[in-house]
């Protein structure tokens, strides 16, 4: 502060440039470290029933099959919602300060816990309202609707798993 008041013209320019570049560096560093939490590449392991290789769906098993995504968009689509959330939180943190994303994340956590029994699909109404997804329609609402999925988990097993009895 004091330096700013007693500074000469070239000094103020340098100070502004320093603070600006420092500000920019801090933001991107924060964003990069957050992006590390995205779904890892190894999460692409093909899963059939009982954890066995599903040849009908994913072809023969090979190391290449398990490491690389089957489609260039697969990774980016899997991470899309988390990335959007991170971008929004980062922007909020820069504009309004740390309290805004902290409070919002607390609400997200609370909303995420409002679920039905583990084998039933929840509508996630509170979470959608928080994210703003209740006012938009995308492919995730039209294609592959989880409420109409043909696979279901075994109810008793899933309850036991959830209660830790398994």
């Amino acid at each position, binding site marked *: 502060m004091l330096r700013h008041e007693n500074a000469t013209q070239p000094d103020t320019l340098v100070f502004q440039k320093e603070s600006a570049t420092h500000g920019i560096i801090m933001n991107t560093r924060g964003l990069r470290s957050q992006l590390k939490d995205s779904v890892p590449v190894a999460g692409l392991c093909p899963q059939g029933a009982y954890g066995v290789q599903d040849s009908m769906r994913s072809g023969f098993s090979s190391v290449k099959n398990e490491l690389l995504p*089957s489609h260039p*968009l*697969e990774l980016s*689509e899997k991470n899309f919602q988390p990335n959007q959330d991170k971008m929004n939180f980062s922007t909020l943190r820069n504009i309004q300060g740390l309290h805004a994303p902290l409070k919002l994340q607390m609400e997200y956590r609370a909303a995420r816990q409002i679920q039905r029994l583990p084998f039933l699909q929840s509508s996630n109404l509170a979470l959608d309202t928080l994210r703003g997804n209740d006012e938009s329609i*995308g*492919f*995730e609402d039209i*294609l592959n609707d989880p409420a109409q999925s043909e696979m279901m988990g075994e109810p008793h097993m899933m309850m036991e798993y959830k209660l830790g009895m398994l």
Partner: protein
Amino acid sequence: MATLVVSQSPVGGFSFENCKRNAVLEAEATKVGSSLPAARKTGTTICGVVFKDGVILGADTRATEGMIVADKNCSKIHYISPNIYCCGAGTAADTEMTTQIISSNLELHALSTGRLPRVATANRMLKQMLFRYQGYIGAALVLGGVDCNGPHLYSIYPHGSTDKLPYVTMGSGSLAAMAVFEDRYKPDMEEEQAKQLVRDAVAAGIFNDLGSGSNIDLCVITKGGLDYIRPHDEANKKGVRTGDYKYKRGTTGVLSKATLNLEVVEETVLTMDTS
């Protein structure tokens, strides 16, 4: 029936489960010599022009599936909102689903803001969606409409880039149509002049490009209202047969006539068991 013992909750949206299997199938098919069926494209001429009072969008009406014409009269000008319409070129399913999704989103947005939607909003939504899918959604669009700020015309490419211009063309016949525009476009044209210009541009695409054909559809959007003219011009009428190979009655001369009377001896009805 195999159920997963403990499954993760399925998410909506695109599922990439069958991509590897499809790649293997395609490799097998090319080994044998056949190929998988092609998606229906609209291989098209679409164009738009801004005139004095608004925007005119024009499109041809042919949809192709590889080398075959799948639909001789398909509608390529899609509704987005009462004051905004969008022509679509590229994969037919992609353009239709994309415009329908954006139309729904824009309706929700308009209900939320309470205002007539702006063309820039539709443009922004479209480009963000197309960029998210990195060009895999093959939809090249010409978006035009009139809102509170006047008439606007945008062209949107499958990868998500957009241009805001006074006249645009897209599709396989875009070069032919653009040639006509470049020659005869003037700013602030009258409605009739602009309609004739768009009609000629789409006709140039129809006659000089194999992927475009049949009729010309026009959509005139002004502040006062909307005029969806389908078809505006039937450039390619299906031919009428000039001759007939059927012989007329009396062509063959009758030499003699003999009549055989048949008696009905018995009539039975066999009921069918439809249970």
